[in-house]
């Protein structure tokens, strides 16, 4: 369990807090989406999960280990895999398999176990067959899935995604979202997605909206989508498909509130 206990973080002592008294927990197998406008504190939240930032007050623990404790920080970081927005900022290796091996190599694993983990992580991320490909020759979706594979190769129990689909085209986005869902549903990873895209949020079990560093909403995606004002105040906006679904609902059609992308609206109408 990743547990935030009354966490406040100020980047400078005299600055307004980026995160202000946040308490929250994420269990293995959960998909939790953290949403909010720019500057709401959501990226700060992501970086607190694995001790890249430590709270000014309060406590963040990962399976009982305090992220402020220097002695166990590397255990925390191998338990929490991070995937950032721009894959080019996180790919270290010059070919796919070498990059995927970077994390396990840092953990000091023997080479046969690294090979095993790399093969497994690349298979999960759907990159088998591209082992010797250079990163700059991959599509953006493939690059982002390589970043996911790199995190997976450390066998983390939790995965934190910071705007994982912001730079992707629709096909790349679908492939990454599918990979994320599979990780939580089939592999039991605890997943935290920081995003400002309703289509990413629709797949979560739970949505936590941040506004000015505080929790402004905590509930299911369908509840969030049926509260247009909350949605708006969190800096989120329904796309055309979501707006159409809302109008259809108002006309009495049976379209669930979490149908916010074209695919799920069509699926709901088809039923």
């Amino acid at each position: 369990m990743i547990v935030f206990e009354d966490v406040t973080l100020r980047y400078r002592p005299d600055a307004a807090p980026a995160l202000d008294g946040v308490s929250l927990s994420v269990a293995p197998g959960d998909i939790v989406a953290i949403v909010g406008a720019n500057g709401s504190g959501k990226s700060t939240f992501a970086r607190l999960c694995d001790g890249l930032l430590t709270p000014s007050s309060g406590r963040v623990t990962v399976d009982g280990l305090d992220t402020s404790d220097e002695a166990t920080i590397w255990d925390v970081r191998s338990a929490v895999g991070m995937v950032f927005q721009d894959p080019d900022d996180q790919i270290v290796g010059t070919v796919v398999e070498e990059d995927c091996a970077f994390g396990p190599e840092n953990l000091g694993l023997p080479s046969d176990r690294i090979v095993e983990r790399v093969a497994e992580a690349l298979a999960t991320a759907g990159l088998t067959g591209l082992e010797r490909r250079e990163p700059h020759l991959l599509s953006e979706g493939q690059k982002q899935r390589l970043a996911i594979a790199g995190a997976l190769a450390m066998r983390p129990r939790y995965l934190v995604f910071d705007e994982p689909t912001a730079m992707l085209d629709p096909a790349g986005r679908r492939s990454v979202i599918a990979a994320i869902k599979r990780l939580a549903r089939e592999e039991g990873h605890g997943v935290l997605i920081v995003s400002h895209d309703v289509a990413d949020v629709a797949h979560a079990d739970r949505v936590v909206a941040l506004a000015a560093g505080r929790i402004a909403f905590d509930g299911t995606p369908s509840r969030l989508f049926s509260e247009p004002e909350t949605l708006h105040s969190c800096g989120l906006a329904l796309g055309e498909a979501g707006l159409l679904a809302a109008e259809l609902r108002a006309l009495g059609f049976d379209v669930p509130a979490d149908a916010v992308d074209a695919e799920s609206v069509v699926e709901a109408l088809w039923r």
Partner: protein
Amino acid sequence: MRAMSGIGQYVPLDSPLHRLDAAAKLGITAALTVGLFTADGFAGLALIAAAVVAAVVVSRVPARAVTRGLRAVGLIVVFTVLANSLRWAPSIALVHLGPLGVDAAGLHRGLFFAVRIVVLVVGTTLLTLTTSPVQLSGGLERVLAPLKLLHVPVGDLAMTLSIALRFIPTTAEEAEGIVMAQQARGAVFDKGGPVARARAYAPVLVPLFFQLFRRADALATAMEARCYRGTEGRTRMKEDRMGAGDWMAMIGIGAALALAGWFL
């Protein structure tokens, strides 16, 4: 910028040269350099050049990737030949070009230096063309390992080198993007003399450096998140080690190259 990208960029193929251990290749490259600089005549150079050409063929790397490196030194080669062969108002000359004359001994010397540069560039480019940056930095780390006794951070240096090589294509793409963005707003890069052209690139360098620093910061964060804490205690997926074949190839080829230079 585009011409610069891709020089010596690793070409992933499967050839005996690709399979040869990186440390062995570093050794052979060192021997090649020694051979080239001790060779006194064209016979030695020709022998070494023949060995390099054979290596290119064996590596199966496309010729274009090899010659791309030469374009960058073209100017130096031309300058070398001209500077050595041209004389001001000589009494004897092969050819007279107005007040200038081509000196036979100078031309001979100039060509000799030019061939030496070309062979050196092709030979060393072949090293990076056939060795992935990770293997290369791993090889360098093993070659330099004795320096660890003097507290030189060999592992960190090797990691830095490997990251630098990995980011060459990314940086080239980024530079190209900035050039295009500025061209779209009317900037001109291909007019005027060399000074004007160089000056035109100044507004490209500022945003490029800004981007690189931002990227370096983000990359450092990502590396930390992936548990990078220096190379102490780090293992490698492919624990490269010099096999008997690698040793034999290195000593055999290396000695042949060095001796070719020494005796011919």
